[in-house]
């Protein structure tokens, strides 16, 4: 995987500064941007996936049991999922470390 940018010497760079690891941005965890995190009340969830559908950060995933959860490593805490959830099962709460 890519190193932190300040560790590259000029000799380490690929020809033309091409990035040949598709999607290696996953090494940059945007989760620490948030001050609030989504909390799911599964008793209200109808598994419609609206939260998943509207997440701009691909931070909602479906668990094996069919319910949804937030990937807190990437969730920026924007609150779209909670706002859009038609059954009101998601609430934004102060982040717990």
């Amino acid at each position: 995987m890519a190193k932190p940018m300040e560790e590259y010497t000029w000799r380490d760079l690929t020809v033309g500064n091409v990035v040949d690891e598709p999607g290696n941005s996953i090494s940059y965890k945007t989760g620490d941007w948030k001050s609030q995190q989504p909390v799911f009340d599964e008793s209200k969830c109808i598994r419609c996936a609206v939260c998943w559908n509207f997440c701009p950060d691909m931070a909602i995933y479906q668990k094996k049991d069919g319910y949804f959860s937030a990937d807190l490593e990437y969730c920026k805490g924007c609150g779209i999922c909670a706002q859009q959830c038609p059954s009101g099962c998601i609430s934004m709460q102060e982040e717990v470390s």
Partner: protein
Amino acid sequence: MSNRIGMEVSLMVSEAVKQAKVDVIAAYPITPQTHIVEHLSELVADGELDAEYICVESEHSAMSACCGSSAVGARTYTATASQGLQLMSEVLYAAAPMRLPIVLTVANRTLSAPLTIWNDHSDIMANRDCGWIMVFVEDGQEDYDQTICAFRIAEDRRVLLPVIVNMDGFILSHVIEPYVPVGQEEVDGFLPPYDPLYTMHPDNPVTMGAFAMPELFTETKKAHEVALHESYNVICEIWEEWGKLTGRTYTPVEEYRTDDADTVFVTMGSFSGVVMETVDEMRENGINVGLVKIRLFRPFPVDDVISTLRKFKNVLVIDRTLSLGSIGGPLAVEIKSVMYNADAKPNIFDFIAGLSGRDVPPDQIAGIYHTAMDALKMGRWENYYMVGLRE
């Protein structure tokens, strides 16, 4: 070998591009480059060249489309001049560090204003720091040869940099000269199909043109600079190979009748023709002068320039443009800078001549010599002289 053929030099360039079997041409018309791309579009229309010809709506888009086609792995060519090169400028600076081996012919023409269509080097000199390899040719045969060599140089895995072949607009582009074409089989042997290192294709997705934070930008510039300087050896090697194939060998710096000369002219591009003629005449009159031609301008052949020019007492640089607000023409400024580190330093004079296609006949070249000798006698000289200027 093939026979000599008379042809307009622009068409020789088109023929070279055809023989290089380019995949994509994206071009916009501008005098005096137009004949090149007109002929290429005819070759495509007639099925003699299997390529995509994109009639873009500007030079900016020409070079942008070239970046796109080169990035997907297509051998890519365009040509321009003057204002068109300036409009491309932004993209020139993007193409080189992205290491896209595009070949560009510049039919050198003066930058406006005042508007003028004739030749000088103000267009390319305004872009001399864009990180491309830059070659200046002196005649049609060389233009043809260098165009084919340019693809080979650009696409060499040790280089992977775009190349500009500079030809003087009108002076070369619109004249009919004899040339000896090289057979297609020989060209094919010399120039294999482009085998890119990275390409834009879904089978192996890559990201090109990512942005750099200050933490990394300096390293990207160093990598580009080293690649450009290291291309020197490959360029020499490829020119030597071309020489073995055709009998015409090119070197970054070339001397003409310099053996017993104290004083040499230094030129780039088509000036060398009239200067060689003048050198011959002056020698008949007992003045032993010579000529040094700079063929490779980027990377600047520093060691060659020092080892060549240190041998002479007086160096008379003829620039074809003025670096406004500096101390003369860009070539002389560069040579003075390089010679600062030489163990033997000649007197360096700078003459600005041929601006916007003004004719520079042999007697004016001889006049350059006499102006320099008079200044030497007086022991002081100007930063530069404008040849033929009405005071």
